[in-house]
Each structure stands twice: as structure tokens, then as C-alpha cells.
């Protein structure tokens, strides 16, 4: 008892058991459509019930701006408030019932997966698309006025002023000390680190009116009675107009040149469609490949997908057909790699990141793995080669492809991953295994 159990029972409905309900199941298929959003399929089992004929029933819609004209066609009926409990309609077993999906953006998906699995796959930029002007961060001493870095010039000027300015009034007061000599004033000022020159002091000293000479008894008396104004305060009082601009502070900004590399990826999906690949295995492949595709799609700027189906021969197929195809023939995995190699010529290794994912139940014709597949895998340059073994019915004796790969490449090879998916629970682990193999491989 419990939800876990209910979920398990639900997954089995119409498959391992309850064939009576098989006709009432509607599956969506896994496919990114239109705006690039991913649609997650939901299996829906609707029990039959007395219902109205959808066409005869019609419905109510809501116009977005104004009400549409009578006669105007409308799309598929909008969900109606009456079907609140999410019932699916349509005749049992009839094709084309509406599937339910939840939509998600591939980039978000990749982010989530990164977070969930702690992955950090950093896509490698390959092809240089253009040299772009980066931000204006480089500096030159000449240039057009419009690129003059005024802010910098102002700051420099300000710094200079801070360094050069001093409290003139205070020094003038000092000059009024009884019997003081310019030299004494100058020395005092230097002792205070004031950037004043001897010439300035002499001039100030000579300018003191006679009746003010002897205003103060001593330097100490001035220090006690005259308030000194720090330079910062002075600048604030006088305003920034007094900040000197100098030619030597002029800098002209200049854009940085950045090589923009496009992050291209081509993903080759290879699937064994031979007779031994039954529905269950097929579904496991789909469950593993699809998130991988989305993930890579989310990671790269430009993702292309190639689908190869094979039994003893290989042929390229469309995505729509890829997961559905079933053939009767035997199995020769190398046929797929040969075709992959051929198709990948369009995607040169220098410009493209390449991923080659193959899946099957590890059955292969004798010696094919060792004599042909392994050499091909070594020959085809790729960020990652992966083989996903789906074996829901337990191990068969002659199914050794995955094992042989592992033996040859080792379990910690950085560009070959082998994963085993024996049930839905293994899918996440397999994805992790595959993607983490690649992510460790930082160049």
C-alpha cells in the first residue's frame, strides 16, 4: 500500500498486466517542438464512461481581443471547465487523442540537470564565427573625441589636485607670526607633508600687510586658533570646476577584439532496432537519449541531431521515426558506426563538438565489436562516445558488446562511457555516468 506502490502499478498498467486497459492508454511522444520547448510526455489512462460526443457537444471559447466572427474556424476545442478533473476524451483506442505535455525550455532543463547531478559541462567553442568588438576596455592616448574617457580624466585630475592642493589660508596665517621667516613656514609645511613650494611661501610672506604682521605670537598660537581645512573639504567648497584637466590625463577608450566562437554540437543517436529490441527496451532508450539530447541542446548555441537506426544494416532516419522503428533482422553494430563516420564528414571535428550515443541490448554479431566497432570508435573523433545497454530482461549470454567496450577502453576512459539501463530507475544514473565522463574531460 502507498503511493510508491500505486505508481509502480500504474506504470505496469497496460504493459505487464491489465491488458484490458491497454486500449485506454494515451502516450505522448518525446519531442521538442515549435518554439524549442521540450514536451514531457504523460501517460494517461482514462477509464471509459458515458460521455457526450465531442463534436456534437461543441463548446465555449473566449476571444482574446473581441469576439471572433461566426463561421471562423477554431482549433482543437479548448479545455472546458466541466472537464476539470483532467479527463481525457476521445474514443478509446482511437488515434490522435490529445496528449498532455509539460513544456520546458532546453536551457532550463540543462541548468536543472547540472544542479541536480552536480554536473559542470563546459561547452567548447569550436568554430570562430566572427571577430567581435568587445567592451571598450583597452586604452590609448589618442583617438576620436567621442571615445575620450572623461571619467578617467576627471579622476586623474582630482587625484592630482588632492596631491597638490593645500590649505593656503592656513599658511598665510602662519606668515603673520611675529618675526617668522619664509624658510620656517616652508619647513613647517613640509613637516606636515603639504605640497607647497618655497617660492609660493616667499610670495605669500611678502604679501602680508604690515599691520597684520605679528598677529600671532607663535606657530602654536596659529595652530590653536585657526581652523585648518582639509583638501577634500576645500574641493567640496570650491566645486569641481577647480579640478585641473591636463592633456597627459587624456585617455581614449578602444574596443577589445574578441574572437566569438560558436558552440556547435552534433549528436549522433544510434539505435539498435533489430528484433530483440522489444517495446520495453525501446522505451528505455528513448528515456535515456531524449534528456541527453535536450541537455546538449540547452548547452550549445547550435545543436544538430543525426539519427541512425540499424539492424545488420544501418540507415539514417528522422527523429519522428527513430524511436518507433522496429525491424526483424540481425544485428551488426559496426554498420551504424560506418554510417556515422560518413555522415559526420559534414561536421568537421575542428568546428564541431561531437557526441556519438549508441544504444542497444549489447547483442552483436560475433567479433564485430572487437574487429570493427572498436577501431571505428577510435577513428571517429568525438568529445564522447557512449554506449547505453538496455537489458530489461536480464543478461543474455551472447550480449557482450558493452562488456567488450569496457574491457577495451577501461572504466575510466575520458571519452568513452558505457552505461547500463535495466529499468526506469537506472536512467538518471546512466545520464549522469555519460555526462560526467565528458565533463571531467576539460581541455
Amino acid at each position, binding site marked *: 500500500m502507498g*503511493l510508491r506502490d500505486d505508481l509502480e502499478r500504474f506504470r505496469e498498467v497496460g504493459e505487464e498486466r491489465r491488458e484490458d486497459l491497454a486500449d485506454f492508454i494515451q502516450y505522448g511522444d518525446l519531442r521538442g517542438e515549435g518554439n524549442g520547448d521540450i514536451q514531457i510526455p*504523460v501517460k494517461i*489512462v482514462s477509464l471509459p*464512461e458515458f460521455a457526450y460526443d465531442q463534436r456534437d457537444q*461543441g463548446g465555449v*471559447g*473566449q476571444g482574446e481581443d473581441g*469576439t471572433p466572427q461566426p463561421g471562423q*474556424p477554431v482549433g482543437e476545442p479548448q479545455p472546458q471547465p466541466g472537464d476539470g478533473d483532467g479527463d481525457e476524451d476521445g474514443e478509446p483506442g482511437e488515434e490522435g487523442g490529445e496528449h498532455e505535455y*509539460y513544456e520546458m525550455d532546453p536551457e532550463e532543463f540543462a541548468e536543472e540537470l547540472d544542479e541536480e547531478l552536480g554536473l559542470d559541462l563546459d561547452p567548447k567553442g569550436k568554430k570562430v564565427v566572427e571577430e567581435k568588438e568587445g567592451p571598450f576596455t583597452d586604452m590609448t592616448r589618442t583617438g576620436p573625441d567621442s571615445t575620450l574617457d572623461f571619467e578617467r580624466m576627471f579622476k586623474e585630475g582630482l587625484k592630482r589636485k588632492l596631491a597638490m592642493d593645500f590649505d593656503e589660508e592656513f599658511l598665510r596665517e602662519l606668515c603673520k607670526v611675529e618675526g617668522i621667516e619664509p624658510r620656517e613656514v616652508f619647513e613647517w609645511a613640509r613637516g606636515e607633508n603639504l605640497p607647497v613650494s618655497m617660492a609660493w611661501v616667499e610670495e605669500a610672506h611678502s604679501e602680508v600687510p604690515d599691520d597684520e604682521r605679528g598677529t600671532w605670537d607663535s606657530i602654536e598660537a596659529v595652530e590653536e586658533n585657526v581652523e585648518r581645512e582639509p583638501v577634500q573639504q576645500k574641493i567640496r567648497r570650491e566645486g569641481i570646476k577647480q579640478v585641473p584637466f591636463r592633456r597627459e590625463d587624456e585617455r581614449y577608450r578602444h574596443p577589445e577584439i574578441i574572437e566569438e566562437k560558436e558552440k556547435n554540437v552534433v549528436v549522433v543517436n544510434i539505435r539498435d532496432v533489430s528484433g530483440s529490441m522489444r517495446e520495453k527496451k525501446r522505451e528505455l532508450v528513448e528515456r535515456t537519449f531524449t534528456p541527453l539530447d535536450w541537455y546538449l541542446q540547452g548547452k550549445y548555441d547550435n545543436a544538430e541531431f543525426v539519427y541512425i537506426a540499424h539492424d545488420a544494416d544501418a540507415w539514417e532516419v528522422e527523429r519522428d521515426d527513430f524511436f518507433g522503428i522496429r525491424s526483424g533482422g540481425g544485428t551488426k553494430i559496426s554498420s551504424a558506426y560506418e554510417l556515422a563516420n560518413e555522415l559526420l564528414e559534414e561536421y568537421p571535428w575542428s568546428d564541431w563538438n561531437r557526441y556519438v550515443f549508441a544504444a542497444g541490448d549489447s547483442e552483436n554479431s560475433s567479433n564485430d565489436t572487437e574487429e570493427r566497432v572498436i577501431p571505428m570508435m577510435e577513428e571517429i573523433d568525438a568529445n564522447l562516445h557512449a554506449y547505453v545497454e538496455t537489458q530489461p530482461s536480464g543478461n543474455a549470454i551472447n550480449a557482450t558488446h558493452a562488456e567488450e567496450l569496457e574491457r577495451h577502453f577501461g572504466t575510466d576512459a575520458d571519452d568513452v562511457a558505457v552505461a547500463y539501463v535495466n529499468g526506469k530507475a537506472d536512467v538518471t544514473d546512466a545520464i549522469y555516468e555519460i555526462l560526467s565522463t565528458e565533463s571531467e574531460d576539460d581541455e
Partner: protein
Amino acid sequence: MSKTNSNADRFRKQAIAGELEEPVTEARNLARKLGLDPYPVKYWIIDYDEMNELIAYGGFQSRYPHWRWGMQYDRQQKQGQYGGGKAFEIVNNDNPAHAFLQESNTIADQKAVITHVEAHSDFFANNEWFGLFTSGRSDDDQVNAAAMLERHARAIDDYMSDSEIDRAEVEKWIDHCLSLEDNIDQHRVFERRLDVDGPIDDLDDDIAEKLDELGLSDEVKGEVFDEEWLEKLEEADESVTFPEEPQKDVLAFVREHGKQYDDEAGRAVEMEEWQRDVLDMMRAEAYYFAAQKMTKVMNEGWAAYWESTMMTDEVFAGDDEFVNYADHMAKVLASGGLNPYSLGMELWEYVENRTNRRQVLENLLRVEGISWRNLMDVVDFDDVLDELEAPEALETITADTLDALEEVPAEWVDRDALEAAREGEIDVDAYPWKVLTYEGLARRHYSLVKRQHRGFLSRVSQNDLEQIGRYLFDDARYESVAAALADVEFTAGWDRMFDIRESHNDVTFLDEFLTQEFITENNYFTYEHSKATGQFHVASDAAEDVKKKLLLQFTNFGKPTIAVYDGNYNNANELLLGHQYNGVMLDLGQARETLKRIFELWGRPVNLLTIVKEVNEHDIEVAKRRNREPEAEEQGKLLRYDGGEVTVEDVPWDEVDHLAADDVDYDTKPDEWLA
């Protein structure tokens, strides 16, 4: 999927619970002040996973083992994982009600949920349709749905674990029952039927026994109640068709008179005890959930309305939380189409405004010299609205303005609370509503002067005005407009809403309050399928068309009405169902499959009389060429399933005539619409 909670987890939840204690208490106080009368609510803080589990289980913690919960869980998880869907709240109809708050909600969300939940709980407690389930129960002071569902869960789990019973058989049996989940009589009081014995009592024994009890002499018995008489009686009874009236509660009928089909024996045998028991449980659950299905729009609208009153108008959200709240509310109301939240809320506001408007207009029409003919000309509605504004003393209530409340009518002020506020025992800055009564709050939140409703009063149509004015007597009661307005009953809108929430369901609610004004403003239209073009087209934007189409979707759960017409059809104990045809035909594919399920519950052949619309290919071709709709012909059909195959045959019209309703028409196709 129980999880052992770590201490940290528990402490975190406790901390959240501590923070929410005051909002929970005060939301309840506020709800009561506003006139709501909810069941007590128990609040639970749960995490995201627990929320998903509850949603899968329809809001309860424990349900019978069944794959469909797994299906809902699967969907819920995917929605959360990929769709970013966020569940805010679950509350279940129970006494006490249980409500679940997700720990990750912001405090503003939590408060919104709490106010929303209090209003739902009021609806559960006071709507008569919910009462249908409760009042039929022996322990009628308690709904205790959680306990009932838990009991069902245990019982069914026991059956499934029973080594004598095949688990898959129990599951299938549940599925069969679920196919008939909507075939109950939801407008009647739910009665549990507890007689688990065979269907029809053995007549002979029974009557013979009764005769014995009468203590009649054998002589008399021999004279009057002889064997012949008994036989006759028996025959008469068997040839009588039952039920006497068509019975809509198909689940009850098969529960009482059904058998199971024994594959090995190749005939009907009595149901096992567990089968009858499961049927009972499924039926009880169907009745329990029926009220919710019947009042979705009303109930959600009700909760949204009071949530908004409490959160926005009474600033329960707190200034800093308000932005969060407004965002939350916008999301809930924004989802497109006929969203029950926004539809319901708008209708409730409409009820309130219309009632208030009527009040004001009636009073104005009672002013000397004002009649429905001249009202629009002689009354300045802006002045009226100014006059209707709540006095400043009610608008702004803080600790410093309490004295101003002495000036307003006494019935608006809660004297005790006012004294307490003066003493500083009530934080009137945080909870100004505490010093007001229901009347005072109604005055404070009077709908017609709210910014978004200010145009409502003046939008009254001349027609409505005339309707109100014509039958008004005592029409010179007031000397001036001011005197008339002083006499307005400000609680009228709310009072009316409370009455309606007691007696209506979605069908009656929409029927009465979905107006032309509403439909036009929201750009609603109907669409119909064209046989000529093979697709759906916009058919009509007329209010009456939209309304009837909408009512079709709400009447009887939006499902066709099927009733038992005969439990002894063909004089061979076959079941005869009739589809009460309202002009919209059945989905025949589904009907066939459903018949197969009913066969399992009846044990003998099942039949269904219905009416379909048929169009011949030639007419379609002609219609296509002429851009017209072909004429459909209505034809009686008998579907029959005998355990082997489904057969469909035409029957003469007079056999289905009694099923056809001639006073309804849900077709909204105009005559010329494809041209």
C-alpha cells in the same frame, strides 16, 4: 510514501507553524466578523514532496491502493519538475477541515492560503449540496471524510492482501465501479445501503412467515392465501418492471440487484461479499466528491472573493507582503479560458453589485418626483457615489482615530472591542476590523464605491430600471436623494451572497447570474463542429447561446444522463439503461466500452437505448458543395452487450420517444454560418 522526518525538518516546520499561529487565529476572527461560518480548520505544514503526494490522493493522506493515484502522482511530479507548477494549497471538505500549507511558500502566500481556506471551509459547512452527503449519515455532526477514506483504504488493502482474493480482480472491480462514478443521483441525499444480502427476498418464505406471525388458522389460510395466490403474487411481481421510476443512481442499482459473471460457469452468480463492499465504498466516495464537482465555480469564486476581501481590502497581507500577494493572485486569476477562480469571483462580485445597485435604485425610485422614466436624467450618479462613500472614521482606523468612531451609527461599532482597543489590548493598527461589526465592515467595504466598480451603478439599463420601478409601491417615501441614500442597507450585497452560497450549485448559479453583460465583456463565444468542413467553427456570440452551451458543460457533471429503465428487461433479468437525450448524442465508442464494464457488475446482458444523429454520405457531399450543413436524422438505437460482443441496432422511434426531451436545445449553429 512516508518519509522519516529528521529533527531538523521537524524543527523547521515547527518554526513555520509558530510564525503562522497568529495569522491563523486572526484570519478566523476576521472571517467570522465578515459573516463566514466555517468548520474548524486544522493546518499542517508540509514539504514539497508531501504536497505532491496529497494532490495525487485528492487531498487526503490515505486512499485505497489504486493505479490512478500513481498516475496523478506521476503527472504532478512532472509538472513540478518541468512545468514549474506550484501548488499553494489543499483543503479538504471535512469537519474539521484539514488544510495543507507548503513550507516553501512566502508568508504572504501562506496568509493568502489561510484566508482562502477559511472561505472554502465556510462553503463546505454551509452549502446545501455538501449537506446532502452529511445529512444522510448517522453521525451527522461529523463529516469525517478522512476517516471514511482511511477506512476504505484499509478495507480494500485487506481484500487485496487476502490470499483467497486475486489482487488484480479487486483492482479491476474498482475500475468497473469508477466507470460509473458519475452515474449517481447527486441531487439526492446520500444514503448508505447496508443490506449486503441477496437482492430480492425469497417471496415464498417471507410471506409464509408473515402469515404465520399473524396467527391465522390454517383454515383461513387455506381459504384465502392458498398456494395459487402465492404463486400469482410471485408472478405478478416478476413481470412488473422495476424500478418503477427510471433510476439515475446506476451504481446503487447494480449494487442492489447486480451479480457477477462467472467465466468458468458461464453464467451470473451472486457477487462476492468483497465485491459488494467495494461497490458500496466506491459509491460513497462518488457521493462525497460529487458536491465538490457540482460547485467548483461557486466554491473557488467564493474563496477567491473572500481571500481578496481579507488580503486586499482589510490589508491582511501587510504592506510589505502585499506585492507578493498581488503577484500570487494575478497568477491564479490569469490562467486562460474559463478559469473557475476568475469566473466564480467575477460572478460573486456581480451578485454583490447587482444586489447593492438594486437597493440603491429602489430607494432612489422612492424619492418624491423620481420615477424609472426620469431617474437617469434627474439623478447625478457621481453625487450618489460620493454620498455612498464610507465616512472617514470607517475608512481609516488607527489607535489615534478611535474617538471618531463615536460619531458613526452604533450598529457599526463593536463596543467591547473598541473599549479593549482604547485600553491597548487590541492592536488596532494591525487589525482595525476588530473594532467593527459585520454591519460596520459591510459599510467599510461597500462594493459600489470601490474603484473597479464605480461604473456599475450608472450602467443599469433602462429595461432593468423599469423592471425595478414598475412594481414598486410606497414610491414617495423619501423627500430627497440624500434621505433615500441614508436609508440604504449596506449589508444587502453580502446578505444575498450568503443566501446564494447556501442554496445554489454551479448550474443554478450560472443560470441565474451569467448575464449578457458578463458574456459580452469577456468575449465568450460558442463553437460547433461542421460535418461539411470536418472542423470546429465559431457558431455564436449571443449571450443566450453561450449560456446554454456552458450550462450543458455543468449540468450533471457535464455528462449525459443515463438511468436504469428496467432490471428485468426481456423478462430475462437483463439490464436496460436509457440515455435521456437532450439533443446531444453519446460518444458511442465510450458507451460500448462502458457497457462492457457494466456487464461485469450486472452479470447478465446489458442494453442501452439511445438516440443518435445520422447523416448520409450523399448529403454531406451535397452540403460541402453548397457550403451548408447537412441535415442530420435522429435515429433510435439499441446497444447491447451480452458478454461476447457489442451489437448496435436501429429501433423504431416510438421505443425511444420517451427518452427525447423536446424542450431543450443545445445547438447554437446559426442558419447561415459557413458562407
